[in-house]
């Protein structure tokens, strides 16, 4: 199963795509993904119900979040009430250690994203802040990367033996499906996604 793990809808302050438009685009362009995850900035969207769109378009639509830490941005999958109570998603100075620890404790999975990006990626902070404990998976293929950024992420993953996922970081409709993650199993919901990430065996895929 192939899921694009990193996308933003109009629920994010800088998102310009409606979820229905993402679905239409995927089908119109025959993008070979089975679904996508909405990782809205600094929040978890517990209001939206995309089940009707899932049925209409035959796509899996899951929800996560993208939070901000001193090491850069981090995707969180499997967000639940316990995790939302553990730290303030709106802050831009969350300790990465807290996000990693609390995600593990609450049955979620934290994945630092676009590590090669200046200021908001892991690579920029390793020299000054040191290597953080507890990172297991990073995003090695990002649709929002500029030249050299994904290469830096891949090198970081190899150096520290991190597993790698892919996500488009789409903010506009035509950017969805640029990067994704191929899993060796079916993923029905957010809990399944966390389980699949913990099991391993996945790989990042890129179409652009």
């Amino acid at each position, binding site marked *: 199963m192939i899921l694009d793990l990193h996308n933003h809808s109009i629920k994010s*302050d800088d998102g310009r795509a409606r979820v229905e438009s993402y679905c239409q685009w995927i089908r119109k362009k025959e993008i070979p993904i089975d679904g996508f995850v909405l990782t809205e*900035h*600094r929040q978890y969207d517990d209001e939206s119900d995309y089940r009707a769109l899932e049925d209409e378009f035959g796509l899996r639509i899951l929800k996560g979040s993208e939070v*901000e830490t001193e090491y*850069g*941005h981090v995707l969180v999958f499997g967000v639940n009430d316990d995790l939302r109570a553990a730290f303030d998603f*709106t802050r*831009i100075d969350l300790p990465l250690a807290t996000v990693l620890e609390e995600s593990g404790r609450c049955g979620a999975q934290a994945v630092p994203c676009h590590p090669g*990006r*200046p*200021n*908001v990626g892991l690579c920029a902070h390793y020299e000054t802040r040191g290597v953080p404990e507890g990172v297991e998976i990073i995003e090695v293929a990002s649709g929002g990367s500029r030249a050299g950024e994904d290469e830096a992420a891949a090198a970081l993953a190899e150096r520290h033996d991190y597993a790698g996922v892919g996500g488009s970081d789409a903010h506009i409709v035509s950017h969805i499906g640029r990067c994704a993650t191929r899993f060796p199993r079916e993923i029905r919901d957010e809990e399944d996604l966390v389980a699949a990430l913990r099991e391993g065996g996945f790989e990042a895929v890129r179409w652009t």
Partner: protein
Amino acid sequence: MDVEELKTRFVGEEFDSTEFEVKPADALAFARCCGETDPRYSDPRHPEYQAPPTFMTRFHGRRTMPEEFPEEYFQGSFDGGKTVIAHAPIPVGATLVGTSQIADVYRKTGRSGSMTFLVHRMEYRNQEGEPISTVDWKLIRKDEA
């Protein structure tokens, strides 16, 4: 004053109310400048003639910010663009009432570092109090490193 204090003190509180006339010549000139070809916006003889939905972005209240709002949060900021929500056609020749408020203040980080976003909102209503348009204007300040 930090962002949380700004939120508590200012977000959601109306600080200005001003009347604006949708002058026929201005509406037509605006439509032409935008390259508008839809006769609803470009032909005053059209039965549904109205100002283009983005027309209200040209107006501004008497005050830009609440009276005690700290200047450092908008002096030197740059324009992050405007978002328009059209609730009803903008009637040409009508006088609308625009109220101003700070809708949100938040921080985020990006490639260039951390930034503070200020969302200035103007809500326009007709003389009957019916909503016509909401215009959100983002002002972005780059935080000190």
